[in-house]
């Protein structure tokens, strides 16, 4: 062990805190305080993808992101004593997302690919520095990020891309299986070859 290592805070291989990982799945949770006008603006922003799904097509192309969700928190739910009642002076933006890969690469994708979208969601939050340049944006996310106290993935050894591809392959296999029973060997060999050619992007 080298002595200078004690000057750092170790993270996992993916650049996040240990509590945010379950196998290949990584969680990110960010709270930010919202300015007065965000209380009205954010609900409008949230309806845009529902009315015009094409606005989030770029996000959907980033297959290593399982999902990304922004919610406006106006009050802390009260479950009775001994929990203290907390009144929020400002609403808070609650962001949660699951992804595969590295934390830096995840934020890079937000910065470089979803630049304008980030402003729509976080523009009304105090301290938001814009999505570009990435350095201040990463520092902002880091400062507002909370390590998960419990994070669970149903398929910790698989990524979302793998699961999607496996489901695609399953469909192709099911189709071949249904047709295979009546096929003579030559025809089956040809059909299997076709399936392999079609499925080579599946993994």
């Amino acid at each position, binding site marked *: 062990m080298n002595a*200078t290592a004690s*000057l750092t805070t170790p993270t996992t*291989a993916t650049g996040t805190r240990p509590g945010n990982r379950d196998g290949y799945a990584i969680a990110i949770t960010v709270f930010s305080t919202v300015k007065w006008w965000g209380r009205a603006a954010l609900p409008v922003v949230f309806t845009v993808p529902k009315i015009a799904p094409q606005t989030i097509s770029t996000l959907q192309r980033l297959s290593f992101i399982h999902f990304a969700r922004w919610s406006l928190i106006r009050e802390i739910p009260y479950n009775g004593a001994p929990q203290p009642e907390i009144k929020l002076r400002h609403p808070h933006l609650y962001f949660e997302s699951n992804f595969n890969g590295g934390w*830096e690469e995840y934020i890079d*994708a937000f910065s470089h690919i979803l630049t304008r979208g980030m402003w729509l969601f976080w523009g009304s939050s105090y301290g938001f520095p814009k999505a*570009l340049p990435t*350095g201040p944006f990463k520092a902002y996310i880091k400062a507002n990020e909370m390590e998960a106290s419990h994070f669970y993935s149903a398929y910790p050894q698989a990524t979302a*891309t793998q699961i999607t591809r496996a489901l695609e392959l399953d469909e192709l296999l099911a189709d071949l299986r249904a047709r295979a029973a009546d096929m003579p060997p030559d025809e089956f060999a040809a059909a299997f*070859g076709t399936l392999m050619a079609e499925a080579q992007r599946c993994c």
Partner: protein
Amino acid sequence: MTATATALDLGDIQGDILRAYGNAYGRTSYVFVTIRDPTGGRDWLRAIADRVMNAAPWPGAEKPSCAWNVAFSAPGLAALGVPERVLRTFSDEFLEGMELRAKVLGDTGSSSPEQWDGGLRHPHVLVTLNGLGERELEAALTELRTEVVRHGLEIAHEEHAHTLDGAREHFGFADGFAQPAIEGASDDRAEGGGVPLRAGRWRALAPGEFILGYPDEDTRVDPQGRLPSAPASPLGRNGTYMVWRKLRQDVALFRRTVAAAAARYAGGDERLLRAKVVGRWEDGAPLVSHPIDPGTFDATAPGANAFLYGDDEDGRRCPLGAHVRRSNPRDALGFEGRLSFRHRIIRRGMPYGEPLAEGVLEDDGADRGLVFVCFNASISRQFEGIQVQWLNDGNVFGLGHDTDWLLGGQNGGSMVVPGATGDDPPFYLAPQGPFVTTRGGDYLFVPGLTALGAIADGVTG
């Protein structure tokens, strides 16, 4: 402020960062020195400081007989008396060092630190000597060894490397084509080495991606023109981070494995299969632009390296898992390369050990491989991003958990070589043992010459 407005201080930047010595200097020795006490260490540094080569152009055709360069690990800086408050301004991964990040990097099993060459664990100072020839290098080595002993220090490890015929590495491939184009240093290499733009144009990368204290790609889009984080002054200007790794190559295992696989592939075309694994033919011709045959490839011709993967999305020409496509994906991740352009490194590797004779398929027990050297301003974003997210895991490319087949690793992944046309079935390369094993290394800091003087004088803050 824009990156183009900034001239690089070549007189203060160490010469091995921006200049590929290997093009002119056939021999390189890497000497790791252990500091026993700060005073002796600093005296020694002062004694050798004037030999350290900067990046200024050499006047005329005269080349120095031997170029000296110096780099420090975090424990090395501490051993020389750099105070903790200054050390804290360095990056976390540098402070942790390569050994502590072994699991992150996939250095496990036979590549784990317990298996490394003894002298490559916890190194302090690396002196790199590039000699025009054997005689010049030996003279410099003798001088260095004498100075080390005279100041009560120790040499922990020496690694002697040299270019192989045809500038090949031990597996037989020409290496080192895809160097980044850097504004103010290598703008002329932008085509193929820089960032791809629309309409076939390219631009060089901001210098701060590779040299500390200069605008980086973030600065380019920052209205306030802020510079990237760097160690405290005077250490944070004209320096950079260096990754040094000794990678042993099992040439016989690689040859046997590829030959056995090729017997089942495309009519036994082993040359094509080797190219599919690497993404380039042995002479360096890219598969994307030369899918059938390397032809007569001239690496120095304009545009020779200016290829993209956008019109080869399925990897019919260059497999998605090919080594060069994984390590420098250009636009292969989509979005015009915006997910990859901040993960570039300057590579300065050099082979070590004698080549295994052509055609030999049994290991002769000799130690041979590659001394991997790269320079980058952020080890975590650049080197580790490539190593961890692109080479050790294939998810981002749609390759599941397959590791880079050329490197293998402890749980070497399979590799899919897609058929050349839509009707051709894919060819599967089974997981294999590690062709490449890590024998040691560390993360180092390469100071500018002013900063080197400050370290030697003990006035770093």
